[in-house]
């Protein structure tokens, strides 16, 4: 249930953000409608009005559908099924909310072609010469500081808790990804919107400054989360629930930051609308597949400003663009595989057996094999005796906790049990502490007796 609340809190707003972003495509802004270059007088055409009407209707239909579907997840208590519903919902949201734009874009381009509104000339693009390569906002020190704090604190934690230290180190590396993203966007060419160089430069500065602040706040938020988790591990009692709360707050703050950034970007665009006297090439529409994917073999740029939504997109005609597109497609396809794996994890019961003087913990595969001679002080615990812990790596579900967990004080322990049972084993082996359980309490008690006999 807690996980489902987290999903609702973190993923449900995504549909509204996307709805807001995609719905604005129905507005004639920056000489474009549905990512198609349009002249103002063309907007009044009856066919265009009809396309806009159809878009509104389709968008409303899909938004209602997407708003209802997540409630299906309340019908099940299985986390893997809930996650599967949310994963597929997210993929469906991306696809279904893009569909009306893709259709409107296609219809509008067909209308332009039928009315011979595309100019018969070769495509050209504008470049700001005077300040080429000099509009840069990302500086080394402001980004270095949060990252070094995050990495240093994770390194300091390593001797105390290697599991959590490594997790925090991985988390801190996200800050480096934010830094790279900031540099990447900062190095994008100046968008030429006017024949006046000052307008172009100021427009680029305003946008790049906003992006720089966005990524810098992301870096600090990331560091704050790492520090919070580290302090929590070393001091708090209810670290499990507190770390989940911390993650929720972090995700919500990131979402709020995204919304704030979108609104600010729109404001910048609006404030420069009057000064805009150059639009990109009229025929460039044809390089935008349904207004969303950019494929232009004659454009050497890998990254271009996207027409739908905010930020940049790749030119799929370049080799780097092709690579990034294939990688994204693999990532998208890996979602269903991840769901299948999670369902298997949740629905396969754990098993604890003694074979050939070895304690074997099996779940999908043999997770642990511990020789009985190495097991010391086997103790039978009840659910209330289990310490408060947080997962460092492994699986943490209502019916399965498996992997390395960190308990208060920073000690790493190996866990293999079903938290819904009431009998668990605690023992030490090879200098590590283990918490294990069988498929049910009877099996756990049986194993305990066998261990005592040995």
């Amino acid at each position, binding site marked *: 249930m807690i996980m489902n609340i987290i999903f609702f809190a973190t993923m449900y707003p995504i549909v509204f953000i996307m709805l807001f972003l995609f719905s604005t495509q129905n507005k004639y802004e920056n000489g474009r409608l549905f990512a198609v270059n349009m002249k103002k007088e063309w907007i009044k055409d009856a066919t265009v009005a009809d396309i806009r009407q159809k878009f509104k209707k389709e968008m409303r239909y899909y938004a209602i559908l997407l708003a209802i579907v997540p409630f299906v997840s309340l019908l099940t208590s299985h986390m893997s099924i809930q996650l599967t519903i949310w994963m597929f919902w997210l993929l469906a949201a991306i696809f279904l909310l893009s569909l009306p734009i893709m259709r409107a874009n296609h219809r509008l381009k067909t209308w332009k072609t039928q009315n011979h509104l595309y100019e018969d000339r070769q495509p050209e693009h504008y470049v700001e*010469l005077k300040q080429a*390569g000099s509009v840069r906002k990302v500086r080394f020190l402001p980004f270095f500081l949060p990252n070094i704090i995050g990495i240093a604190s994770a390194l300091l934690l390593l001797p105390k808790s290697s599991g959590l230290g490594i997790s925090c180190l991985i988390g801190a590396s996200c800050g480096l990804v934010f830094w790279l993203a900031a540099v990447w966007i900062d190095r994008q060419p100046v968008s030429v919107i006017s024949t006046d160089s000052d307008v172009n430069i100021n427009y680029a500065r305003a946008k790049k400054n906003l992006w720089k602040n966005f990524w810098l706040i992301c870096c600090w938020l990331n560091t704050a989360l790492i520090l919070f988790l580290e302090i929590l591990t070393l001091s708090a009692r209810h670290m499990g629930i507190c770390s989940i709360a911390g993650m929720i707050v972090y995700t919500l703050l990131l979402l709020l930051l995204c919304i704030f950034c979108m609104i600010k970007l729109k404001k910048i665009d609006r404030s420069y609308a009057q000064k805009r006297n150059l639009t990109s090439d009229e025929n460039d529409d044809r390089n935008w597949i349904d207004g969303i994917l950019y494929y232009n073999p004659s454009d050497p740029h890998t990254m271009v400003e996207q027409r739908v939504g905010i930020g940049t997109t790749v030119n799929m005609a370049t080799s780097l663009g092709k690579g990034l597109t294939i990688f994204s497609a693999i990532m998208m396809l890996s979602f269903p595989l991840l769901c299948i794996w999670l369902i298997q994890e949740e629905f396969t019961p754990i098993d604890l057996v003694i074979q050939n003087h070895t304690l074997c913990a099996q779940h999908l595969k043999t997770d642990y094999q511990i020789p009985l001679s190495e097991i010391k002080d086997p103790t039978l615990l009840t659910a209330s005796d289990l310490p408060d812990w947080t997962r460092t790596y492994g699986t943490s579900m209502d019916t399965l906790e498996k992997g390395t967990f960190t308990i208060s004080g920073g000690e790493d322990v190996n866990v293999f049990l079903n938290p819904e049972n009431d009998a668990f084993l605690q023992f030490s082996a090879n200098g590590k502490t283990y918490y294990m359980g069988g498929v049910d309490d009877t099996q756990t008690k049986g194993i305990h007796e066998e261990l005592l006999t040995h």
Partner: protein
Amino acid sequence: MVISINDASEIPIYQQIRNQIVLGISDGRLAPGEQLPTVRALAEEIGINSMTVSKAYTLLKQEGYIYTDRRSGARVRQEFETNKELSEKSQELLRQIISEAKVSGMTQTEFFDLCKRIYKG
């Protein structure tokens, strides 16, 4: 100063860059002594190989429009050679343009009017 690059044109990109900079100098958008972007920065901005921009700069330098030094990079020349003559290459180009104008039926007056308009900017 905004320059436009036509990727599908038969004119090589280095030539297009060279032409646009000369155009900028002639109509005053590029002032004498003005700093030009570095080869690498301009190449990144246009999204082309640095060699292409380097070729354009070398051409401009040979023709006396810009000068380069290690410290300040490329700059527009403060003074140009005012020999009041067009290079042989430019004269050949002009000859071609005049021929095209003649074939298209333009009179001498019409051609001169056009030249005056373009010359004044």
